[in-house]
């Protein structure tokens, strides 16, 4: 099964510590096993643009679609046998400590 890991910030989590950030190791291990299919960081919400079409008219707004103290800072698309393996992978991501990770199963068309 494929899962998307939404890497989220969380003000209540451990403060970020660059020395403890082993993201290269995390990515490297998953690349080796072929379990990580894609993934990127995302620019901060200041750089976000929200687009809507309302009554046939295009509305473009600066910023994210909700005001929030937490936002998605990155994503990873992984292949896992089941939810337990996806949880295992997510728990090893450094942002599970410095933020939190939402595990969402992909819903294929």
């Amino acid at each position: 099964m494929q899962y998307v890991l939404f890497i989220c910030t969380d003000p209540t989590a451990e403060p970020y510590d660059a020395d403890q950030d082993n993201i290269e190791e995390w990515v490297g291990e998953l690349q080796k096993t072929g379990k990580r299919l894609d993934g990127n960081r995302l620019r901060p919400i200041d750089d976000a643009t929200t687009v809507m079409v309302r009554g046939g008219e295009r509305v473009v707004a600066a910023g994210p679609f909700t005001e929030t103290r937490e936002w998605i800072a990155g994503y990873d698309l992984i292949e896992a046998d089941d939810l337990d393996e996806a949880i295992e992978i997510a728990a090893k991501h450094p942002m599970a400590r410095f933020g939190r990770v939402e595990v969402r199963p992909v819903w294929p068309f």
Partner: protein
Amino acid sequence: MTPVDRREGAAALTSTVAADHARIIAAVIRSVGDWQLAEDALQDAYERALSAWSRDGVPTNPAGWLVTTARRRAIDLLRRAGTQDAATRRLAIELGLRESNGRTVRVPPNGAGSQQPGLADGAEADDPGPVATGGGSTARDPFQELGADSGAGFDDDRLRLVFTCAHPALTMEARVALTLRTVLGRPVAEIGRLFFTSEPTMQKRLVRARAKIAHAGIPYRVPTTRELPERMGGVLTVLYLLFTAGYSSPEPDDAHDALCMDAIGLVRTVLSLLPADAPEQLEASGLLALMSTQQARRRARFRDGAAVTMREQDRTLWDRDAIAQAQRVLDRTLARASHERMPVGPYVLQAAIALEHARPAEAADTDWVRITQLHRTLAAVAPSPSGTLARAVAEGHAHGPAAGLALLDGLDGLTESHLFHAVRGELLEQSGDRDAARAAFLRAASTAPSAAECADLLRRADEVGPPRSGRVP
């Protein structure tokens, strides 16, 4: 097989379901992969059994018959769905190649390996269905697995079901409801009553929970030894909630009693899974001792529908053998914890408290100082409002009512509970403040959950005595 009357057929179905539901649903889930499909197909099979068994007689292997019929129903349901996905899933069931977690479908290179389900009684099901037939079967046949033997495989099935039902990705309510339905085969209406909701609402919640198992890819298996520590706590919580659902019923009857016994049975099964030296043994053993002690007092806990306080219970109704056995489990657990210098958890402490209460032959012999010590340790390890309430009673007995009342002052969240005011009334009565005690018992009575408990609290208000003379209201 010879025809039997309808009542006999129904009785055979009831006893098969009571004895074997977990094994049957486990076999169907293994075969069809999807929990909802398995549930729907098995319900159909139960209905068919009612008429078929009355007409043709009860099969020699009723459980096998049900599994085979359910599997055919699943194939039928998928055929009717008519989608590509359903066709793929149907093929997988027909080939008997579904993986245990129900996600992966592999077609063998030679295209063989299909099997004919229902080699014995099952073949006589009233819905033969165009099941794929073929040469010799190499795949696992759930029907054959359901032979007369109900040994180790039975526990394996129950454990797989329990760990999937208790998966942390499900809400706590969904975990308990799903365990009641799938592992214990309880009717949806009964589960609804336990959660104070209607049958259709509970049905919807169960459907949603099964959908999450399928969509999120929750595996159908017992966690690995490495995963067990983080999964064990959640499973024990679910099992204790099952027990509490049966135990706290204001109308104790056979169904609730059976629920308590089933919960105890599941704790034993989970214990048997753990290696003897696993640290999780401690809490699981503690929970077993706790439940067994509570269950041993069940016949004395209610009188005319009202809960009887421990002090007023008729102790000759307690099951002394069960209490002694629970004590041995606890003693072993505590000895091991102290030998290996491991901290004891909340279930062990609650079991120790329950056994301190259960051991003395007379309520007057209760060692309240010891119970207070245990409560203090419990409050440090796992603070909870209901724990504080019980501790206030103990402190009141051990160190005077003022100590108990002081603890209650910090319990703002419980002021709507009749238990809070009943405990307060008891402590105030001890302190000699009769007017306040009366008022507390009356307030408790006004929020009591049942008429019987209300009457009982009014009696206690009455027993405090009349208001002091000379007091002008």
